[in-house]
């Protein structure tokens, strides 16, 4: 236990100096702090099983968070992620039950999601609607479609082939395959969002749309592209869930949009566009998951959980923000 403290403390200080002047630094420190604290409060917290549970609980949603982050950087917002995710799940499941090969079914589902994104993009760029309303409407449309497809009752995909179930349930060594997919997507997209020429245009468009136009950036294309990306990633998450749960539940993913947006905003994304990193958003998602499961691990009375969670969240973001301001001041 004593050693535990030591390593904890040391690691803490090291990290602190290391991350002082780097946007996500504080968030990481906060998460580390929570973990250190928890490892004292509960012997189960630092177990591999627990961490696997935590990771599993946000890895698939994490894929949605990635899409949402790009959307927020653009200065848009996507309220339809949860519904679109569920739609992919339902279309894929339904097609499979109709005898379509599950892989093909999934591709079709993804294509449809991409299509939805494309239509959203057109409505935003050509008609000129705001993202909020457009995606709000599609939230209803997609969700409705789920109920129509499933007739309101979950489709049981018990007969899914093992090969397909592997996506959601398989493990490579100790690691669940889901987590691997998640990590790959996060690392790639984080790098791309920071460095790729194409995604850089998202920052310009989000920072000052008019100036972007006056710099020869085809903002409409960028917008359409981001909508497609966001919806496709949501669809992918849906497919993964379908494989993991072996079921298509029409009510699945309700409220996911809020979770995703919150994660991104906690991670430093701005609702007015131009700011945000995938890494930060994922840290935000992680923080939320860790808090939730910590409270459960401590057997905190269910009545108090929401309340305490809210307070911790408030504390965390305040610290992060104040640190951020300090950094900027120099």
């Amino acid at each position, binding site marked *: 236990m004593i050693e535990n403290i030591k390593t904890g403390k040391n690691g803490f200080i090291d990290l602190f100096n290391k991350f002082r002047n780097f946007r996500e630094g504080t968030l990481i420190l906060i998460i580390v702090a929570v973990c250190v604290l928890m490892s004292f409060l509960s012997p189960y917290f630092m177990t591999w099983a627990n961490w696997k549970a935590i990771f599993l609980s946000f890895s698939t949603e994490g894929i949605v968070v990635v899409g949402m982050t790009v959307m927020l950087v653009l200065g848009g917002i996507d309220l339809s992620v949860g519904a679109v995710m569920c739609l992919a799940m339902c279309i894929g499941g339904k097609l499979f039950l109709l005898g379509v090969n599950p892989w093909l079914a999934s591709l079709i589902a993804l294509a449809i999601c991409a299509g939805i994104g494309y239509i959203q993009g057109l409505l935003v760029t050509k008609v000129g609607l705001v993202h909020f309303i457009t995606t709000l409407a599609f939230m209803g449309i997609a969700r409705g479609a789920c109920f129509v497809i499933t007739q309101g009752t979950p489709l049981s995909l018990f007969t899914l082939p093992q090969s397909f179930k592997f996506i959601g349930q398989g493990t490579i060594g100790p690691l669940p395959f889901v987590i691997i997919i998640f990590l790959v997507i996060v690392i790639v997209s984080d790098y791309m969002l920071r460095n790729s*020429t194409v995604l850089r245009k998202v920052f*310009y468009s989000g920072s000052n749309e008019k*100036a*972007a136009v006056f710099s*020869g950036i085809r903002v409409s294309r960028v917008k359409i592209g981001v909508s497609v990306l966001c919806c496709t990633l949501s669809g992918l998450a849906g497919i993964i869930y379908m494989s993991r749960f072996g079921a298509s539940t029409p009510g699945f993913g309700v409220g996911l949009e809020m979770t995703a947006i919150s994660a991104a905003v906690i991670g430093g994304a701005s609702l007015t566009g131009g700011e945000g990193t995938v890494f930060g958003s994922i840290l935000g998602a992680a923080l939320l998951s860790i808090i939730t499961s910590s409270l459960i691990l401590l057997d905190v009375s269910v009545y108090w959980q929401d309340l305490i969670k809210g307070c911790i969240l408030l504390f965390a973001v305040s610290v992060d923000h104040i640190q951020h301001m300090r950094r900027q001041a120099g």
Partner: protein
Amino acid sequence: MSDYALEVRGIVKDFPGTRALDRVDLTLKKGEILALVGENGAGKSTLMNVIDGVHLPDEGQIFIDGNEVNIRNPLDAQKYGIGFVHQEIALCQHVSVAENVFMSELNSTDRKFINYRDLYRRAKKALAPLGDIDPRKKVSELSISNQQIVEIAKALSLNCKILILDEPTAALTESETDALFNIMEELKKKGISMIYISHRMAEIFSQCDRVSILRDGEYCGSLNVDETNSREVVTRMVGREISNLYPAKFDGNCIEQDELLRVEDFSDSKRFTDISFTLHEGEILGLSGLIGAGRSEIVKAVCGLFPKKKGDVYFRGEKLDIHHYEDAINNGIVYLSEDRKVEGVFLDMSIQRNISVLDLKAVSVNGIVNINKEKGLAEEYSKKLNVKCSTLSQNVSSLSGGNQQKVLISKLLSIKPKVVIMDEPTRGIDVGAKSEIHKLLRNLTHEGIGVIMISSELPELIGMSDRVLVMHEGESCGIISGDDINEKKIIHMASGLEKVGA
């Protein structure tokens, strides 16, 4: 009771990376117009922001009528009778012109409700001497020049004792500028003291009593206008001699050069009709006209930034179909907007990202932006136009107005364009840098590049252009060249009284 309306002593203001103000003293006599001059980034706006309580100074004192005062925010400043026309237009775009003009009053009034009819009436009255603007309109519907007028009327509505004008004429046309000067005369007669910031020496010597000089955040003395000349002032503020001569024009007849760009009968629904002109290699073509002549619109249309009904563009004789600005850029045609803040800079992004934006491919290696290349590019051009900044990774929002303009010009030149179209290129740029840019433009033409220049500053236009296309209410009044290029003729044509070679 001192005879100074305003006095500041030992003001220090630090920003991360820069000391903007270093123990600055400044005195403003009652009823005088004091010119404040200095290079871009010298600290003029910062000093004014300190006086207005927008920034709090790190050290130093402020005296009004001889008593030390503590100004913590603009509201305090108002209470002390300070009015401020900001360099960067700061108006509420969604709100009516009238409410913008009287915002401060509406804020301090005890009346519970707004009487709009009365408000509009008074706004109309307040705006009348400066220009004809409908007080019911939303600010977002106004052109920048009109927005600048609203900004001025707003400050005047405070009927203050001390009025600060930070480059008010930068976005104004001749006529509007004159209107402003008349008003300043009036105010002066009423014993109101003014601080007038400008980079135009002519204005300073015609309007001001004294001139105080800032250099690199330090105060270096004041001169009485009638005891000095622009040469001395400029030398003091820049620290070296500046030849305010314009670079030599194209020798010989540029029309004999190969045609670079040909625009044939451009028309849109209302802003311009049947405009045609050609631009030759090595030529600087001036575009002149009163505000609203549609100069910006026509060149925007050429670049695919403004819808057109009909008209063709030929580059080196072959037809281009330009649907997006992207197409224009790919053909080496670039445009500098007159609206720096809205159509120009990415305020919350770094300098280097602002410069590299036009052609990201150039700084990318297979789809990934190469930070070093990007930095290199930015360094090269920000040096060329010596942008005053602490690092290239600082946000453009932290640059002075003039330096932001320089960043935009760097951005244009960074892609080695063939045709450069500039709308008010030297707006807000200091004398030294201005002549630098003039030289730069001329040098570009020596490399066979063609330049189209829009400027509301006639002397500049006349000094630089080989030929001038004069427009009146969206129609061309013909092109003049050689000795025809003079104020009288241009103004004559611009007001639609004369057409040439039609």
